[in-house]
């Protein structure tokens, strides 16, 4: 019997090729996005770890400090620890060349005398006149580059390589080219090696280094050695195997990775609706076939099995295609993520082909197949419950589908209410994994009330559309109302796709608004000079000397140096921001949100206290008077909180204190940002800031790589950065909308097929072809309108969750709810346009229907 039923199914596939194809594409796109993101995630981590491993060479342990580094004297201490075979200081800087494209280059500063024991440099001897390139590094202008980099810029031994350093533009001489192997493969070959002491000088590291790479003696246990070293060196400096550093990187980029993974599940969720719709309609369309099968003795369970087996087949085909497509997409996704990781986190990835993980392929395959099965479950049950006698009747004898039971409606409303209450009142202690249930509750509730909502909206629209478009509109509305399942499935897919577009956009806008208000309050310098086109660079800094040069430029009243770094704190990290607080206090109006302003000001200026961000105090349960302790290169930094401010510098929490303290504790004079304040006369002049910016640019041109912004430009730039961070999420939600659009095509094709007889009758009683076409297009339009309305509601609920619960969990702060009306105003015509495009083919199909066949169609 199964074979016979399989034959029936395949005949259906053949007869409805387009519908089958669209359904499979819907599943495969969902699976593809999921698989691509997971593959890109794992590839990114592998690429980042590969960088660490390749850079580590043969090192078995690494001694690493915070972003500010630690004194080079620690290296001598480590070398003296029994069991250490070799220990070498390292500095890593992501700098830029002074070539026209200002390309990024990873510069590794090593001690040329001992480093060969740790790292193998396979020098490209061809054409080289240098006897020992590592020895040549002893000359202060020496640099070694990879063959890939040399070829890119047409460099040979002895050629000059201009670089932007903390001391300004410096010309180095290429004194060795290593093969694109081992260390030469790191960061796609955009790598150079220079002397560590030279690097200290040109990159303003003072007497600090970033890390120590070491090897143990052959007979010494690595773990034991690590313990010994820990005991010998100051606190706050970690001793870890190189492989463990990957975990730290993984943690740093985790927010980006989790965000993308969530967005990718949405695409798959939208796929469920497409499957549901396809099978719902298939059951409706094959009403009579089911009746015949039942009449000739096919049992209920076999009818259900037939539909479920069909869904599994579609799911399997769609999933396989999705995995193949996803693998290809992963290349692009990983590249995008690598760029974000390099730009925002300053972590460089070493390019490699996407990592194909069988476990991911199997889970994606299983998810795609199970998704199909879930989507087909209810329709297949409907098929089994079909009364064969009724099914064998004509179409008009069928009962109108029950729109919505009261029970379902109440359950839906209850779920929505529960979700909203949880978002509003649930404690933050609950893990984020559980908190994700809230939007699911609200979404499930909305799906349950959707048929009623769709009916209500359609009924409200009916008289207006009737007046505008006549009877075609009425027929379109009625078609929707009378087939609530079909309508709900399509509108539901659209709702979910749009809701995530809306909520992502409104979350970003809420965040931008808040950050904008915050910047208006705290960012009050007239000009801001930054090291990186992103907010800051983890490895490249300015020197104080640059600040002094800028201060000498006419029109500038005062220059303030800002240092910004992340420090380990309570198993995580926090942002540590130090700057000259007297100037800031002079300009900012009552900055303290919690605490006595005058007292706080005195304490801060005296270097006896710190300011803490509200999200830090919320996260760690801190209040005024509590002490924050950090391990610094000199001694423990231990100061009380004297004021709390609403601050959005970092989602991990931030502290602020005077720069004098930083210089004292960290012995690091690096600068990440320079705040420039103008003479009063120029401040009054709207063009004053631009004028001085141009003057600074003239001084820096060709000497320093710096990004100079006026206050307004800086704020806009930060807001654009936020947008840039979410770009991949936007792309994923766009895929969800594409899948939803496929759902519309599918639904309308099915709707046209299902209503073939009705369309035939319309033509028979005098409906013109264009009127029929218009009817199909109007149905698509109304579905788009209902989709936007329900998507807006769902989007608002998701946004509420994001700005309250998710933001609190991730960043320790809530954001004001902001749902931009402009978004809906843009989305409505766009969605209608997408729907109309999706409806074009079904409308043509309807218009060209053979009337005689259609009337006889059953």
């Amino acid at each position, binding site marked *: 019997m199964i074979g016979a039923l399989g034959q029936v199914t395949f005949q259906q596939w053949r007869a409805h090729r387009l519908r089958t194809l669209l359904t499979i594409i819907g599943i495969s796109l969902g699976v593809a996005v999921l698989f691509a993101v997971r593959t890109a995630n794992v590839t990114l981590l592998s690429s980042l770890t590969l960088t660490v491993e390749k850079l580590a060479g043969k090192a078995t342990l690494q001694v690493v400090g915070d972003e500010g580094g630690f004194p080079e004297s620690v290296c001598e201490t480590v070398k003296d620890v029994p069991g250490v075979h070799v220990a070498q200081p390292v500095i890593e800087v992501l700098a830029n060349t002074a070539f026209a494209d200002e390309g990024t280059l990873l510069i590794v500063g090593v001690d040329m005398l001992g480093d060969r024991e740790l790292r193998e440099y396979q020098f490209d001897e061809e054409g080289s006149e240098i006897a020992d390139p590592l020895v040549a590094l002893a000359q202060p202008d020496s640099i070694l580059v990879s063959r890939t980099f040399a070829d890119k810029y047409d460099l040979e031994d002895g050629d000059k390589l201009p670089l932007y350093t903390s001391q300004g533009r410096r010309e180095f001489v290429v004194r060795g080219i290593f093969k694109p192997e081992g260390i030469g493969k790191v960061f796609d070959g955009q790598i150079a090696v220079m002397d560590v002491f030279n690097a200290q000088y040109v990159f303003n590291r003072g007497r600090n280094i970033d890390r120590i790479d070491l090897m143990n003696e052959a007979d010494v246990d690595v773990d034991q050695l690590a313990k010994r070293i820990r005991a010998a060196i100051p606190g706050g400096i970690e001793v870890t195997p190189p492989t463990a550093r990957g975990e730290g990187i993984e943690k740093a980029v985790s927010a980006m990775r989790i965000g993308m993974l969530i967005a990718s599940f949405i695409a798959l969720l939208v796929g469920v609706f497409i499957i549901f719709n396809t099978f719902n309609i298939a059951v409706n369309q094959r009403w009579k076939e089911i009746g015949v099968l039942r009449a000739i003795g096919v049992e209920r369970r076999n009818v259900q099995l037939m539909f479920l087996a069909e869904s599994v087949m579609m799911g399997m085909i769609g999933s396989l295609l999705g995995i193949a497509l996803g693998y290809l997409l992963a290349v692009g996704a990983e590249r995008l993520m690598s760029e974000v990781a390099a730009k925002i986190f300053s972590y460089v990835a070493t390019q490699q082909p996407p990592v194909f993980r069988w476990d991911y392929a199997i889970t994606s395959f299983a998810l795609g197949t199970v998704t199909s099965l879930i989507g087909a479950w209810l329709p297949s049950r409907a098929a089994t419950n079909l009364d064969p006698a009724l099914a064998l009747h*004509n*179409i*008009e*004898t*069928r*009962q*109108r589908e029950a729109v919505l039971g009261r029970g379902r409606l109440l359950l839906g409303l209850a779920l929505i209410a529960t979700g909203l209450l949880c978002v509003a009142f649930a404690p933050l202690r609950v893990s984020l994994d559980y908190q994700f249930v809230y939007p699911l509750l609200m979404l499930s509730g909305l799906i349950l009330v959707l048929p009623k909502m769709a009916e209500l909206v359609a009924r409200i629209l009916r008289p207006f559309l*009737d007046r505008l478009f*006549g*009877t075609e509109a*009425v*027929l379109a509305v*009625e*078609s929707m*109302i*009378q087939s609530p399942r079909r309508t709900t499935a399509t509108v539901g897919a659209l709702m979910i796709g749009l809701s995530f577009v809306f909520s992502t956009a409104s979350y970003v806008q809420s965040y931008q608004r808040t950050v904008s208000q915050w910047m208006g309050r705290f960012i009050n310098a007239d000009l801001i000079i930054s090291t990186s086109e992103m907010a800051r660079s983890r490895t490249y800094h300015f020197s104080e000397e640059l600040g002094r040069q800028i201060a000498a430029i006419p029109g500038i009243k005062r220059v303030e140096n800002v240092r910004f770094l992340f420090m380990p704190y309570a198993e995580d990290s926090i942002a540590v921001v130090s700057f000259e607080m007297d100037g800031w206090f002079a300009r900012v109006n009552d900055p303290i949100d919690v605490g006595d302003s005058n007292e706080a000001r005195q304490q801060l200026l005296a270097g006896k206290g710190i300011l803490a961000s509200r999200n830090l105090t919320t996260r760690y349960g801190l209040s005024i008077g509590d002490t924050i302790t950090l391990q610094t290169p000199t001694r423990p930094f231990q100061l009380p909180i004297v004021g709390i401010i609403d601050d959005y510098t970092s989602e991990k929490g931030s502290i602020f204190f005077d720069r004098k303290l930083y210089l004292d504790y960290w012995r690091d004079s690096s600068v990440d940002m320079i705040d420039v304040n103008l003479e009063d006369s120029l401040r009054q002049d709207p063009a004053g800031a631009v004028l001085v910016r141009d003057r600074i640019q003239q001084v820096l041109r060709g000497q320093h790589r710096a990004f100079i912004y006026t206050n307004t430009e800086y704020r806009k730039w930060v807001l654009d950065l936020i947008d840039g961070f979410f770009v991949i999420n936007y792309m994923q939600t766009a895929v969800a909308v594409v899948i939803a659009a496929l759902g519309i095509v599918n639904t309308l094709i099915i709707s046209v097929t299902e209503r073939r*007889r*009705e369309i*035939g*009758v*319309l*033509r*028979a*009683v*005098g*409906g*013109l*072809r264009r*009127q029929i076409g218009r009817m199909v297009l109007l149905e698509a339009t109304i579905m788009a309108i209902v989709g936007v309305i329900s998507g807006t509601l769902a989007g608002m609920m998701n946004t509420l969750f994001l700005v309250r619960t998710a933001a609190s969990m991730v960043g320790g702060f809530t954001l004001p709810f902001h749902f931009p009306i402009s978004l809906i105003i843009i989305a409505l015509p766009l969605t209608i346009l997408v729907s109309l495009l999706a409806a074009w083919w079904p409308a043509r199909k309807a218009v060209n229907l053979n*009337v*005689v066949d259609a*009337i006889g169609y059953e």
Partner: protein
Amino acid sequence: MRMIELVDVSRSYGGLTKVAALSNINLTIGAGERVAVMGPSGSGKSTFLNLVCGLDQPTAGTILIDGVDIGILDDDSRTRLRRERIGMIFQTFNLLPTLTAIENVALPLRLNGMSRRVAEPRAVAMLKRVGLGGRLDHRPDQLSGGERQRMAIARALIFEPPLLLADEPTGNLDSQTGDEILDLLDQLHGELNMTILLVTHNEEAIRFCDRLVRLRDGRVVNDEKMERGR
């Protein structure tokens, strides 16, 4: 006055192996005549009806409806002709299940661009005329077979067309209900004097007509005047 005129009309289907559904039909039906078309299955009755209403086109010959050669009309003009000058009723009623009785009957008027405000009172009047005054807001699935056919008749006659085509109008009804429908058609013919072309198997229905055309294998084999027996 001629309402329907078929001159050497043929209709065949298929590709290389053609099957002739109708061959060289020559037939003239006058205004106000009530003509029954009978024949066994496959004799070409449905094809004949589809050609007359312009849903199908002949492979040869000319069809004139109320003096208009429908072969030279484009699709839109044929559709308008069908909408305004030809009423059609079917064995399976072919009502739109999602619309109420008023909306179903007003449909041709609305498709003609008439506003709801104007169209619906006319539909109500027509529904009352066919005896469905108490079923105005019912949907087809809320009505009996006879009532559905009445609704279909009301829709067919909403423009008071000069030609009514009926394809087995009593085929899905019990004999008593069938008789009632035929009585209704009789009554409406008396009021509107339209030409009725009735394709049927029902011997009872023949007595309602004053002419009988018999088809076999796509040809007219008999065309005789009848004494109306009702």
